[in-house]
Every structure is written in structure tokens, then in C-alpha cells.
């Protein structure tokens, strides 16, 4: 069609072991704001990375037709030269440089060996004016807030002569006012002919500004809804996002299980950001978990769930942490991870590569790391034979697929790495396990096995706190569900009878 700016046809992208996108079609009209929505892992970012050349031509199947021509982007530079500019969720600004320097980073004004700073700052001031940011271009990025940084990113995109602007979760770290201002800015650019693609989890924002909404689910296009033609109410969008069947994706809960006393009780827990110390990341949160119980903590990314759990686990996150912690009814103070482990707490991180495993080490070393005491004597000499024996034991019990326990874990698949991480914390012999996104980035079969392990744990009378962004998993595995948003607990539901729509509504309507 004549007024289609972009058409992505039959896009298929395969990562080792996973089909991230499967025959996706995506059409953006000239001059519209197009929202791309879907659950975590639905393939939104992958699609945009293909469009912007981060995944170069040849690494995917299908065609990108932009301004009527088939494009073969080899790099982000190619797509930018055509006016396609992507702004990532994590801002790509250098904190120690000025706004002006950041805006022309890589496309410096003047000569390569003689940068024209006067032109740089004059142009920067002009673009800042266009985005309505009242700051000097000489200001350092680190001295302005996230909302203003987001505007600098947009000004930077304009400086690149953007014709198609892609914004990945632009408001995820902004407050209500800044978010609204940003969306209004996009709407005003629209009247000047700029086309935007916006990826967002915040349904209310999408229905506020989008002309067309494309819903992705499990790497496939589900539907496209147009304003004025289709129903684009919040409920309709949510239904499109989560509408898959829930049959036998979860193992049977252990029969006649007895819920015990409160194993862990957290009251009025508050913590602040470690760097921006006046920012409350967790705000007056209270919850508890009983022995033999699984509680799910639902919420969007950035809701403060990981921060909450890490601050409970020996103050591993945050500053000025306040609140009361009771384990089996006894008040405790856990100031280091060591103390938390000694009180039979385990935290299985969401970031298994960054915070969980030592990738360059063997399965054995990773398994024993949190409980070296139990395999060493009084002189701290490690019984290597015992260590190998124990690792083999867990490999068998958790069905970890590895050629040998002496294998380095970086060679294992994501699912097997996750199991090694679980083995490490099970070997630490905890009563209460905090599992943060325990099935992130692993395939369906491995997920089922992890769920089985969770059921085994609770049938031994242990407590499990499961933080997860996947609502079906939260509903399918938990006894009770807490819902967090923007650092606060905004709801508690019994899992029986809880629906994804219900949870999403609680999140959407929690904003005051």
C-alpha cells in the first residue's frame, strides 16, 4: 500500500534451541504511532533488533520493506542512515559526558580531528528546544533525571534525522507526569509526520496514544487492532496478550499437603536505591509464607520484586533498609548473605549468569559454593571426593544433562544451568527458598522439570517464594499470589480462582 512506511514480511528468527520469531508480519503506516505489545519473551525486542540491524541481514528469514524498498541492514549504522532510530530501554548515554557530546557521539560535527564544538552545542540546543527540554547542552548527563535523559535520547534521535522512531519501554523508569509528557511529545511529533513504534507493558498508555496495536505472542503475530475500527479497550488488549490455554503445563500439586506455621514473615519492609538514595525502591511491603507453601510474587519488570527479595537476603541490595523480619516467629536481623544462609534462607537469582553461577567453573564447584563448610574439615581443607559425589547426586536427582560433573557450566544449556543453580541452593539446605524468575529463558520441557522440583521442595515442608513475570506460571504454581507494582504490594489473591486478567487489572489500576 502506498502509505505503508514499513512492512516486515514472514520474519523468522531462530536462536540456538529457540524459535524466537515464527513467520511474523508487521506493517507500520506512514505517520502513525504503532504500539507493539506482548508478554515478556513474546519476541517484541527481537523483532525490533532485526529492524534496526542489530541482528543483521542473513541472520533471519523474511523481508524488511521500508519506503518501498527491500532493505538489507548489516548493522545499526545502516538502519540509522535510512532514518530508523531505536531507543533502548536501558538508555545509551554516557553519564560523564555533556548532553551535547552525547547527542553527537559517533557522528561528531566538524572534522574527525577537529571537532566543531560550537556547531555541536548550537545544534544540540536546537534539538533540545524541539523536545521541550529546558537544559543547557553543556550539562552532564549524570546531573539530570531519568525523565530528562529520555528526552535527550529522543533529541539525539531527531539529530540523526529519524523518520521512524522505535521506543522500547520508554516509560518503564519514568513517573506518571514524565510518562504523560513523553507521550504527548510523541503525539505532537506525529502531527509533524514522524512515525513511531512504541513497545510498552503499560496498557493505559497504549490506548492513550496508539493508532494501531500489534499483539505478539510466543513469537507470532496474533492480531493487529486499529483505533476507530476495533475494540482497543484495556481488557481487549490484555486478552490478546495472555490468551493461551492452560492445560497440563504444570505438574500436579502434592496431595494432602499440610500448610504449617508462618516460616517467613516480612513486615513494613522499605529500601532505597543504592545510588539514588532518595528513591524508594521497596515501599512498606508486608507478606508471609508458610511451611509447605508456594507464594507467587507477580508484577511487571521494574516493580521492585527482585530488589525486595535481595534486600531481605542479607541486605544484598539497597540502602537504609528498614522493616521487620521473622523466621519461624523469631525476629531476626540478616545483615549479610552468610547470615541469611545460616538462617536457612536461599535466594536463587533471576540472573543466573551475572549473579548466580561461576560460568568458568565446574558443576561441582558451583554446586558446593554456598555450603563449602559441609564438605571441608576444621582446617578448611575440602574433601574433593565428597564434593564430586554430592554433585553427581544432584545431577541424578535433578536430571541435569551434562557429560560430567567436571564440565564447566558455560557449556550447559540454560535449563541445565538453572538446575545447577537450584542444586547449589538446595545443597545449602534451606527451609525457605526465594526463586527469582526460576524459568526465565528456558524451554517448556525444562520449565516443567523445575516445577516438579518446586513441588518436591514443598512436600518436604519447605517454603517457596516464587517471583515471576509469567502470569500463567504464577497462577499455576502458587497457593497464594501477591501482586507488586512500583515498589508496593498492591494486592493479594488466592491462586484458586485468580485470572491473568484479574492480576493485570490490579496492576493497571494500582496507580494513584
Amino acid at each position, binding site marked *: 500500500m502506498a502509505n505503508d512506511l514499513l512492512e516486515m514480511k514472514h520474519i523468522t528468527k531462530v536462536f540456538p534451541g529457540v524459535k524466537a520469531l515464527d513467520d511474523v508480519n508487521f506493517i507500520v503506516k506512514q505517520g502513525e504511532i504503532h504500539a507493539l505489545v506482548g508478554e515478556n519473551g513474546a519476541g517484541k525486542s527481537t523483532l525490533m533488533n532485526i529492524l534496526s540491524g542489530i541482528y543483521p541481514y542473513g541472520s533471519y528469514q523474511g523481508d524488511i520493506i521500508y519506503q518501498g524498498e527491500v532493505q538489507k541492514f548489516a548493522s545499526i549504522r545502516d538502519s540509522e542512515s535510512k532514518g530508523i532510530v531505536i531507543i533502548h530501554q536501558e538508555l545509551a548515554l554516557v553519564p560523564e559526558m555533556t548532553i551535547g557530546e552525547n547527542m553527537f557521539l559517533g557522528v561528531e560535527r566538524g572534522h574527525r580531528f577537529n571537532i566543531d564544538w560550537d556547531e555541536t552545542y548550537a545544534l544540540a540546543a536546537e534539538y533540545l528546544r524541539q523536545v521541550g527540554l529546558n537544559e543547557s547542552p553543556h550539562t552532564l548527563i549524570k546531573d539530570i533525571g531519568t525523565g530528562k535523559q529520555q528526552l535527550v535520547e529522543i533529541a539525539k534521535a531527531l539529530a540523526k534525522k529519524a523518520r521512524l522512531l522505535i521506543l522500547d519501554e520508554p516509560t518503564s523508569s519514568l513517573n506518571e507526569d514524565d510518562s504523560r509528557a513523553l507521550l504527548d511529545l510523541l503525539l505532537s511529533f506525529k502531527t509533524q509526520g514522524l512515525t513511531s513504534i512504541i513497545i510498552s507493558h503499560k496498557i493505559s498508555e497504549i490506548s492513550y496514544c496508539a493508532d494501531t496495536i500489534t499483539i505478539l505472542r510466543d513469537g507470532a503475530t496474533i492480531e493487529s487492532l486499529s483505533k476507530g475500527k476495533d475494540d482497543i479497550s484495556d481488557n481487549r488488549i490484555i486478552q490478546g496478550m495472555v490468551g493461551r490455554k492452560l492445560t497440563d503445563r504444570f505438574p500436579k500439586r502434592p496431595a494432602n499437603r499440610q500448610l504449617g506455621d508462618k516460616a517467613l514473615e516480612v513486615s513494613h519492609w522499605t529500601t532505597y536505591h543504592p545510588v539514588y538514595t532518595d528513591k524508594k525502591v521497596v515501599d512498606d511491603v508486608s507478606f508471609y509464607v508458610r511451611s509447605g507453601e508456594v507464594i507467587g510474587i507477580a508484577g511487571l519488570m521494574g516493580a521492585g520484586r527482585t530488589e525486595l527479595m535481595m534486600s531481605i537476603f542479607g541486605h544484598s541490595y539497597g540502602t537504609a533498609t528498614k522493616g521487620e523480619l521473622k523466621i519461624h516467629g523469631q525476629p531476626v536481623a540478616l545483615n549479610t548473605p*552468610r547470615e541469611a544462609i545460616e538462617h536457612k534462607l536461599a*535466594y536463587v537469582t533471576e540472573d543466573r549468569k*551475572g549473579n548466580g553461577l561461576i560460568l*568458568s567453573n565446574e558443576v561441582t564447584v558451583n554446586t558446593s*559454593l554456598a555450603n563449602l563448610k559441609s564438605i571441608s574439615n576444621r582446617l578448611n581443607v*575440602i574433601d*574433593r571426593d565428597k564434593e564430586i559425589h554430592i554433585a553427581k547426586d544432584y545431577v541424578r536427582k535433578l536430571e541435569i544433562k551434562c*557429560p560430567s560433573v567436571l564440565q564447566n557450566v558455560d557449556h550447559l544449556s540454560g535449563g541445565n544451568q538453572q538446575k545447577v543453580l537450584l542444586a547449589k541452593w538446595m545443597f545449602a539446605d534451606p527451609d525457605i527458598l526465594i526463586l527469582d524468575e526460576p524459568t526465565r529463558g528456558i524451554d517448556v520441557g525444562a520449565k516443567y522439570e523445575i516445577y516438579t522440583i518446586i513441588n518436591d521442595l514443598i512436600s518436604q515442608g519447605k517454603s517457596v517464594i516464587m517471583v515471576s513475570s509469567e502470569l500463567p506460571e504464577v497462577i499455576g504454581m502458587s497457593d497464594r499470589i501477591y501482586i507488586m507494582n512500583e515498589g508496593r504490594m498492591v494486592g493479594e489473591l488466592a491462586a484458586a480462582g485468580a485470572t491473568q486478567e484479574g492480576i493485570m487489572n490490579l496492576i493497571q489500576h494500582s496507580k494513584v
Partner: protein
Amino acid sequence: MQVKRVASIKDALSQYMMMIATVLVILFFTIATGGKLLYPQNVNNLIAQNAYVFVIAAGMLLCILTGGNIDLSVGSIVCLVGAIGATMMVKQSLPIWLAIIVMLLAGLAIGVLQGYLIAYIKVPPFICTLAGMLMWRGLSNVVLEGLTISPMPEPFLNLFNSYVPDMIPQTTGLNETAVLIGVLMSGLLLVYKFRERAGRSKKGYENVSLTKELITDLILVALILFFMIELAQYKGIPVILIWVAAILAIYGYITSKTTIGRHLYAVGGNQKATKLSGINTKKVFFFAYANVAFLAAVTAMITMARLNSANPTAGTNYEMDAIGACFIGGASAYGGSGTIGGVIIGATLMGVLNLGMSIMGVDANWQKVVKGAVLLAAVIFDVVSKKKSE
């Protein structure tokens, strides 16, 4: 499965690469020098000249393990500790045992200071030890007043420079003590290995296959016997060898068998994960840097004894030799991997290169070029083989 097997062969190859390279270099120089390299006296010199590298590199390895960090100050610590010790022993005629204690304490105190700054105040190791390198060098010149102190007292020299006496002197050209100790060590090694095997099968753990065990044991025994017979043909076992062997054995044991060793590797492999596993990562850094300075103090004594003096330039570039030995021996420049065995190989390779080229009469400047190239090649090899395995 096929792919994994190929990977494991590659792993094995990269693991033994430096060992193979060392053997090849030894063979090369043996041929190029017409066999002179392996003259008993030269084997003896190899030990005496390179003792300092082995000792400092053992400490340096621990720092490198914590994340590719290095300690630049050790050479200056060697000089300062030597200056203090020489002043006490020679100028003030204080007892030798007192001087030794003060020297070790001085090294430890410097280590505690630097370790504290690095671990708890979070001063970057490179900068902290660069500052130390300047300060301790300067201080040692102040202590020495810019002059060389010599000679050292005879009893002090004997602690490091003497030889284990021959049991039956003036019989053959052979030092029987050395041969006997070689045989004893071989026997002990075999007994230890087979007791370990028996213990494993008793507890129901797995053992490596008997052939594999026998082959590695026999290679080790052959090496020990060859070495001891070489030394026996000269003056016997140098005392310095006992010091070096003891230190390497202790640190080999610490790094491979104890929890503190495990902590060092874990911090270098993934500091955040280690912290979340309940390990006090600050203590680990503190230990590594306090320890390397302590070993520098030990090295100071070895150096004083070898030079029979304390002088303002003693210990210059020792840190570089130690760092080179670690990296050539396969320690990762990013931390988390490296072994004392690797250090032994790295330091030996460097020593053989030095000695071989000196015997051949290669110009000293070219010797530096060759050593630098070998270091570079070893690190390139490490980086490339890591990248491939990703």
C-alpha cells in the same frame, strides 16, 4: 555428543599446551647448546637464579586469581625489606633471627596496609600497588642512604646458599643424599597416590583408570629421579630448592584443596555470585594482597643471600617476572583460573629461556625481545582459546 568430545580434546590440549611448549623449548636449547643446558651445574643454576620468580609468582597468582589484578609493588618491597634486614644484621650487628622476624613482619605490615586499602577502601589494586612501588623503593633508598650494604653474615648466607651435605663424601662423583632423597620422594609419592585410590574405592567414589594413574605417576617419578641425579652430579640438593619446593607445595595445597583457595577462584570467576553465596569477598582480596607482600619479604632474604648484599636496585622488575610466569603458566588475565602447577611451568620456561640464551651468547637485548614475545604469545593463546569455547 561428538561436538562435546572434540571440545574436551581441545580443552585438554590447551591445558597441556604450555607444558608441551616448555618441553620443546628445553629440547631446542639442549640441541642448540650441544647439551650444555642440561649440565648438572646449569640445572643447579636454573634453580638458584630463578628461585625468586617461583616464590613471588606463587603470591602473585593469588592476586591474579581474584580478577586479573596484579601487585606492582613486590619488587620494591623486596628492596625495602632487604634494606631493613641488612641494616640490622650488618650495620647494627643484631642477631640474625631477630632480623628475619622483623623482615617478615615488615613485609606482612606492608601487605596488611595495601590489602586493607584494596579490599575495604576499594582503591583499585593497580593504583594502590603502583603507589607502593614508588613509596617502598624510595624508602629503601632512604634506609640504605643510597649505598650498598655487604657482605651478609655467613650464617645468614648458609640458610639459603648451602647444599644438603653428602652422606658418603669422597667416594664417587655422585652426591648420594640427593639420589636417596629422590628415591624416597618417588616412593612416598606412589604410596600417597595409591592410598588415595584405596580411600576412594572404600568410600565408593570413582577413581581414574589404573593405566592413566600409572602413566602420570611414572612421568612424575621419572622427572624427580632425573632432576635429583642431575643435582647429585654437582654439589647435591641446594637448600634454596627446599625452600622453593616447600613454598610451592604449601600454596599448591592452599589453592587446590582448601576453602580459601576455592574462594579465590570464585571471586575471580564471578564476584557477585560469590558474595550472594555468603562468602566474604573483601576478606579474600585482603588475604591475597597481604600474602603476596609476605612472600615478597621471603624473596627479599633469598635475594640478599644470592647477591650477598642489599642494594638500592635489588628487586627491580621482580613483579614483571612473576606476572609473566603466571600468565605464561595459563593464569587468566580476567581472573578465576590459573594454578601453581602452571606457575611452575611458566617460571621454568622463562628460566630456561634466560639460561639457554645466555649459554648461546644471545645479546641481552634480544633476550628481552624473545621473553616479551613468549609472554604475548601465551596470553594471545589464552584469549583466543577462551573465545573459541564461547
